[in-house]
């Protein structure tokens, strides 16, 4: 059977809906020994900040039932280094490049966005789960007004379609999604990790040196599916769904509740070729279920 897996997000065509999630795929290079980067729809690169960042002290990762908590703290070489040393290499591949950016202030986000103009990437993804230094450390992503403000500010500075990545650590994800849409977001991606903690009872200490971190993996999939479903039912812009996707079936679940594409995160830490495995699973599902066009299953769940 001939199947079509292309999807369009804010005018950008993805050859298939499988994207590597930010922070779990580095800048692509580490995975080339294990898979062909040309095969997947896109890569959301590891979160970038204006200046290089050291990140948090180790241990930075701990396993929990069907999940992991990480507290990397955005260790990255900074935008400038990325553009000069990593982007040229990545651009050799035929896959969409989404740059995931984070800042401490609205101005920083705008500066980073501006720096990417003319660099020939495909999309900009705003990671708004970071604490806002000016607002006393409240994450940008938890207040609708701040979400709208930062979205519209960055939108003015970028030539690329803007994806806003939503934090799940909120009471009303729909309000946040609507705020991003009102601010001019071209697409949304969700969910980022859920704030969590693990305890080492032998040493009477937190497992992570940073005390808290972000939970990801299959454990959070049911929460992610619920949020993606709620958001898809409330906004008109396309949604990239993620949270615990380990195989093709999981990806299909997200698309059935309305996601136009999916991102694979934690799975990359287990199988460096996880994105390709997920893609194969999706294609296999399509063949078995007789789905000719992937777009036919997007939001097919009626409730």
């Amino acid at each position, binding site marked *: 059977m001939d199947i079509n897996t292309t999807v369009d997000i804010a005018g950008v065509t993805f050859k298939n809906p499988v994207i590597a999630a930010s922070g779990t795929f580095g800048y692509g290079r580490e995975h080339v020994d294990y898979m062909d980067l040309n095969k997947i729809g896109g890569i959301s690169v590891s979160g970038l900040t204006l200046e290089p960042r050291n990140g948090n*002290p180790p241990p*930075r*990762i701990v396993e929990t039932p069907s999940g992991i908590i*990480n507290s990397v703290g955005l260790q990255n070489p900074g935008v400038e280094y990325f553009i000069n040393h990593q982007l040229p290499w990545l651009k050799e591949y035929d896959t969409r490049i989404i740059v995931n950016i984070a800042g401490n202030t609205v101005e920083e986000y705008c500066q980073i966005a501006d720096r990417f103009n003319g660099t020939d990437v495909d999309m900009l993804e705003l990671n708004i789960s970071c604490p806002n230094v000016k607002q006393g450390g409240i994450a940008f992503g938890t207040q609708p007004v701040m979400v709208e403000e930062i979205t519209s500010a960055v939108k003015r500075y970028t030539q690329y379609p803007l994806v806003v990545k939503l934090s799940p650590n909120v009471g009303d994800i729909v309000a946040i999604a609507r705020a991003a849409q009102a601010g001019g977001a071209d697409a949304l991606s969700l969910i980022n990790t859920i704030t969590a903690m693990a305890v080492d009872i032998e040493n009477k200490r937190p497992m992570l040196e940073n005390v808290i971190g972000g939970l990801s993996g299959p454990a959070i999939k049911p929460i992610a599916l619920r949020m993606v479903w709620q958001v898809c039912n409330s906004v008109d812009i396309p949604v990239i769904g993620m949270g615990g996707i*380990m195989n093709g079936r999981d990806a299909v679940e997200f698309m059935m509740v309305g996601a136009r594409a999916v991102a694979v995160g934690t799975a990359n830490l287990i199988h460096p070729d996880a994105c390709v495995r997920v893609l194969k699973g999706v294609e296999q599902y399509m063949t078995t279920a007789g789905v000719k066009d992937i777009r036919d299953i997007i939001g097919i769940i009626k409730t």
Partner: protein
Amino acid sequence: MMTNTICRVEYNDYINKNIKKMGISGIEHKREVLPGQFLHIKPGSDYHGLLLRRPISISDVLPSTGIMEIIYLIKGPGTAELSRLKPGDGVDVLGPLGNGLVLDDNVKNLLLIGGGMGVAPLLYAARYYKHLSLNGIFGWRDTGSLIPLGAAKDFMDRVYICTQDGSTGHRGLVTDIFCERVEDIRPDMVFACGPVAMLKEVQRLCTRFGLDSRFSMEERMGCGVGSCMTCACKIERDGNWQYERVCCDGPVFNGQRVVFD
């Protein structure tokens, strides 16, 4: 393209109370396996609550069969799962991974210092560098946590064994023996692996004795291939420190550059 093969367990036997040695066949590797490199092994299937792979050092590569051996402590649920594997079972292995120990030609006399489970990778270092003048100082808490040296013993000129309770070998720490014997051995390189407290002291002593060193470091890991940035280790560069990745920048680092807080 490296594929992440399902390999085969050849044997998986107790060598001490909670310590097992597993032989695994079918691991593909293009480059020669270096001491300090590790296998990243998945316990259980994807359906289970255990997600992450477990990094375990290669403790030997058998010359005739190519079987890779690991020696592991049954510590938590992951290694407990590994301990249940039987000969003939499949096991999902990624690796060999990491930057192993590469020595300049001018290194003629190598001293291996290992503590606890840190002795495991040194056993393969002994085989790999058997053509050098080779000495070993190995220590454990007690006889119950000791790793039998097996074939590695034959590759070394002298081997010093100690336990903290004196139940096997000398009573004391590897660093005590290091101090006592450094004059006789006169190594031009130290390769050490073990608990942080031990490495910190080895580092101090190497500085004192003016010795070059390489440490094989451990840190909690995710991917094992360098993309998730979870396995951070503080390394000094140009008077400053930065976090490097144990999984691919290491696990073997220049010992004098490792920053212990």
